């Protein structure tokens, strides 16, 4: 039921290669026998997959595929999922985001008074425009929907909550991957570059900033682990907290890693800017950390159980 450390390392290595070559991810995963790995240990498999995607700054439709797996009846490859526009958190509305996917049929969630319903639409019939913006490499397309619900809309009930929770865990893993790579770059840079006759990384302020980044990353990792192992009744809540945590972590980590690279950190020459913008883009999907903190806080004030989530 769970993958041993050695196997995980092999899987991680294969994924790193796949992402490094830049070839389409879905067929490469099939070649790796991904379905089996996923079945064996969804927590580790998902975390490693999205972690590697983040580290490589790759863009794909994997997130939509992973969420669709929670919504019965749709086949990744043929279908992709329209994600709620970042402005809407995880609440489906009249605008949305398509990830870098070649699927021809788009599953469109809509919020109704009775919960979320899904409709399928031919991709070619949607009005889309490339997202560009802060993260030009995201591969996102922005979509504005017409007002009318599609006739074939099906209610999905709690499955939508599960899909969002799965998406949030995957995004948290991807953010962690982005931040891990950014921190490695910052550690390497500050260990090598000298000023005042000594490595930058020997200055206490630089050291402490990177130590804070490390602590924030560890915090995100362990909160994600816990979200994966949370009991069913708190799984969605724990996934929200894990996504909130990862989003806050990218803010903490990337602010520091960009600073210690000096001018280089804000140029197109260094990859650092790509980590910064990808971190921000991933944070924004399915609820940015500030928005989620507000949502959790509002729920708390309205009397929600401040669940301990973790037991010993």
């Amino acid at each position: 039921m769970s993958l041993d450390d050695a196997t995980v390392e092999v899987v991680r290595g294969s994924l790193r290669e796949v992402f490094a070559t830049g070839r389409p991810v879905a067929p490469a995963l099939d070649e790796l026998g991904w379905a089996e790995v996923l079945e064996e240990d969804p927590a580790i498999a998902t975390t490693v997959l999205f972690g590697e995607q983040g580290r490589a700054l790759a863009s794909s439709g994997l997130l939509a595929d992973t969420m669709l797996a929670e919504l019965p009846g749709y086949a990744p490859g043929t279908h992709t999922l329209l994600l709620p526009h970042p402005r809407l958190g995880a609440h489906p509305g009249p605008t949305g985001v398509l990830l870098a996917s070649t699927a021809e049929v788009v599953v469109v969630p809509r919020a109704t008074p009775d919960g979320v319903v899904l409709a399928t639409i031919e991709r070619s019939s949607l009005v889309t425009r490339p997202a560009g913006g802060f993260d030009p490499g995201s591969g996102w397309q922005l979509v504005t929907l017409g007002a009318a619900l599609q006739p074939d809309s099906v209610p999905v009930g709690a499955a939508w909550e599960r899909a969002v929770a799965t998406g949030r865990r995957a995004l948290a893993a991807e953010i962690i991957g982005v931040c891990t790579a950014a921190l490695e770059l910052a550690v390497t840079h500050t260990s090598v570059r000298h000023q005042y006759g000594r490595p930058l990384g020997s200055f206490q302020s630089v050291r402490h900033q990177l130590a804070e980044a490390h602590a924030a990353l560890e915090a995100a990792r362990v909160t994600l682990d816990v979200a994966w192992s949370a009991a069913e009744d708190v799984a969605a809540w724990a996934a929200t907290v894990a996504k909130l945590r990862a989003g806050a972590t990218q803010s903490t980590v990337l602010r520091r890693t960009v600073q210690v690279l000096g001018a280089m950190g804000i140029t197109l020459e260094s990859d650092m800017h790509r980590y910064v913008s990808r971190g921000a883009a991933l944070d924004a999907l399915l609820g940015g950390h500030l928005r989620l903190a507000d949502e959790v806080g509002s729920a708390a004030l309205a009397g929600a159980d401040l669940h301990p989530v973790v037991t010993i």
Partner: protein
Amino acid sequence: MSTSTAPLGPRAAELAVDPVAYALALREHLADNSADYDRWRGHEPMTVAERNDHHAALLRALHDDGGWTRYGWPEPAGLGGDPRHRAALYDELSSAGLPVPDQCLVLETLGNPVVHFAPSLAAEVMPALFTGAQWWGQGFSEPEAGSDLAALRCRARRDGDHYVVSGQKLWMSFGATAHRFVCLVRTGTPEARHRGLTMLMIDADAPGVSRRPVALASGQEEVSEVFFDDVRVPLSRAIGAQDQGWAVAMYLLQFERSMFAWQSAGIALRRLRDLRGRLASSGTPLPDGTTGRLGSTYADIVTLRSRSAATIRRLAAGDTVGPEASVDKILLATVETGLHDLARDALGADFLLADPQDPHALDSTAWRAEWWYSRSSTILGGSAEVQRTILADHVLGLPQESSR
């Protein structure tokens, strides 16, 4: 509830090997006897000495009605089990709306090295901790040895089968009321730094010991100065070998950083629930940003619980926890400062102006004292800066500060 030979439940042996069963049984006990524990719910006594006694009485109650305080500690003093039992005790108390007895903070720090390095001493001195009859103080810091602990100067010289201790400790929590002190003292030369230190247990009532409480800014006398004037300590009171005190201190830090964090996370969640209740029913608009800060403070607590639980599980499995425990400490400080700053800002004028004599303002008065105490989370047991340096050196492997 007051016999000294505490009756154990019929399932003691089973509970000792199963922390989950222990947690459930304890939860049931606390629920079934809820009214008996009511006196520990609500407001705490005003002075530290009264609070110490109040919490000691809670230990006594837990001990006498099921031996709950003895699980997780090795026999004969304890009932066996591992750190997860203790973690479960602290957590169940917090979930039941009860305080974690303050004495347990020190017990977690000092009990572990005594058990590990001085098992026969442990058998002698630990039972009184489990009943709340006694508690200890930790004597590490000195006026000139704060962050730089290895600069400490309190001396112990050998005289036959005794050490003779002279010098001063500072900032000792429970120093004014503790029955014994566990002190790091210098047996080698000052130049030997951390290689010339020994850990000793010293009785508070030994001739030559004197103490002076020091009040925090809240007015609470949380810490003390302790003076040693040729205090004679039997060699059998050494914890670990002579000059090996640093290793004992490092061993202890594993528990201090993780178990203290876990206890604090449980307490913080209880206090956040209290604060939420008060804010939700306040009827006045909350200051800007309060809602989001409430959400992120809660998330910080979940993260701290996640991290410290993982560390405690490693300890229970026999792993050694090294410099990475500084992450636990940083996350703890995040929770402590975040929660108390939130309370201060959200309670606003009440926090600032509540009259300590006003029986209706006890909650605000308590938050105020706790706010001051929370400032120690970035100072005590290795400051925020010291933790960052440890991570930079030993986890990230950055160039040393002194390197050129």
